[in-house]
């Protein structure tokens, strides 16, 4: 069921900059919806380096990616942002004019939002599954090559080859084993970065002859009309074998791709979005770009730069959202009205 929501600002990307944009837009009474392709907020901080220390966040001599995200979530909570996770913005349609912008944002989860302004805080792009470099793999994708399991039933009675050695690969090998005709796990080494009980479970099934493990790497796919027949594996000892295969699941982690942003009619420069440094607005009035995805003379890809950009973008955006409102700049330390919004007024 498609639903349409109306809001002041749609923020594309729920990484640290997208989150802080909620704060800066919120102080100016703009209501935000955030959309992110990951199932969790935090972007690269949460996906790539949750445990890694960051040393250049002002006021924090050291903070981990995940702690920064948790703090930001708490900081923006008073503005009650609406998170739409696990979905990608696929369409951005201009409904308004340069003076009175209005946009329609659509996601691949059937969500449609009408918004006055859009903030693109998409960082390095959207996280998408890594595609193994196997010739012709595109033709099988969605039919017999998959990067996620949506419906387990689809694998009932099938010969399933699973590539990878992480938790996703192990979990699905174990979950599909009872229903599939045969599950074969293919991994380049006899060690796994997965929960020990999953690894033990897999080894027990292999020992009992109920599942196969092949030490090697996939080198080719064979089949017709999107239907796989064989997966070719080069084993660790150099032998080349063809595994009978109806469906192949590949789990090599995620990579960042610019994705549909490229199709939104914005000027791009080397996959980045040029903006001015007064308002951080793109070539389309009402669409702002902040954080790692924008570019301007002197740009530094730092989280602190993105925070600054979000604050300035909000100052311009508020004139689109509330054209007749007089905006007075205020400090959170002293303004009772801002403190009310933050829920801390005495």
């Amino acid at each position: 069921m498609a639903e349409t929501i109306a809001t002041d600002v749609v923020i594309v990307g729920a990484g640290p900059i997208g989150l802080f944009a909620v704060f800066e837009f919120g102080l100016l009474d703009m209501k935000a919806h955030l959309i992110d392709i990951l199932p969790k907020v935090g972007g690269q901080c949460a996906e790539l380096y949750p445990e890694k220390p960051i040393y250049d966040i002002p006021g924090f001599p050291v903070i981990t990616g995940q702690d920064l995200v948790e703090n930001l979530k708490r900081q923006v909570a008073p503005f009650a942002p609406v998170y739409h996770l696990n979905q990608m913005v696929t369409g951005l349609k201009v409904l308004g004019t340069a003076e009175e912008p209005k946009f329609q944002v659509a996601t691949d989860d059937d969500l449609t939002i009408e918004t006055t302004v859009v903030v693109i805080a998409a960082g390095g792009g959207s996280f998408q599954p890594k595609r193994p470099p196997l010739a012709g793999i595109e033709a099988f994708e969605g039919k017999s090559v998959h990067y996620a399991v949506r419906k387990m039933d689809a694998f009932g009675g099938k010969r399933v080859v699973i590539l990878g050695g992480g938790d996703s690969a192990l979990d699905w090998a174990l979950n599909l084993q009872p229903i599939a005709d045969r599950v074969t796990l293919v991994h380049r080494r006899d060690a796994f970065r997965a929960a020990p009980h999953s690894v033990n479970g897999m080894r027990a099934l292999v020992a009992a002859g109920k599942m196969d493990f092949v030490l090697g790497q996939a080198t080719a796919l064979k089949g017709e009309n999107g239907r796989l027949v064989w997966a070719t594996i080069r084993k660790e000892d150099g032998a080349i074998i063809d595994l009978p295969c109806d469906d192949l699941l590949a789990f090599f982690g995620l990579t960042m791709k610019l994705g549909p942003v490229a199709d939104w009619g914005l000027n791009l420069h080397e996959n980045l979005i040029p903006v001015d440094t007064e308002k951080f607005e793109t070539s389309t009035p009402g669409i702002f770009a902040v954080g790692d995805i924008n570019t301007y003379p002197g740009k530094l890809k730092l989280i602190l730069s993105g925070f600054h950009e979000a604050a300035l973008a909000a100052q311009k955006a508020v004139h689109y959202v509330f054209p007749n409102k007089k905006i007075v700049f205020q400090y959170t330390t002293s303004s009772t009205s801002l403190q009310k919004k933050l829920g801390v007024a005495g």
Partner: protein
Amino acid sequence: MVKITFVDRTGASRQVEADVGSTVMETAIRNGVPGIEAECGGACACATCHVYVAPEWTETVGGPSQMEEDMLDFAFEVRPTSRLSCQIKVTPQLEGLVVTTPAKQG
């Protein structure tokens, strides 16, 4: 300064100067060497700076750490000479190092 040669998959090679103490990945990025993406910026968290160390250099360079070995699971066409270039620190002993970039990073 230490000279490092990057060979791409077509066999084209480029030699660049590396600072001692930096990493091979940083050297590649600073010099615009194609074939190294380094999405995570050197946190050993993405496997998009994968290189093959030339066989004559594997002993001097050494093998991957446990964490790096785990991360190499996300790389493609991993070989015994595979390393993540963000985890190779440039030392004077690496003068003349040769690494090859893979066909695909991610």
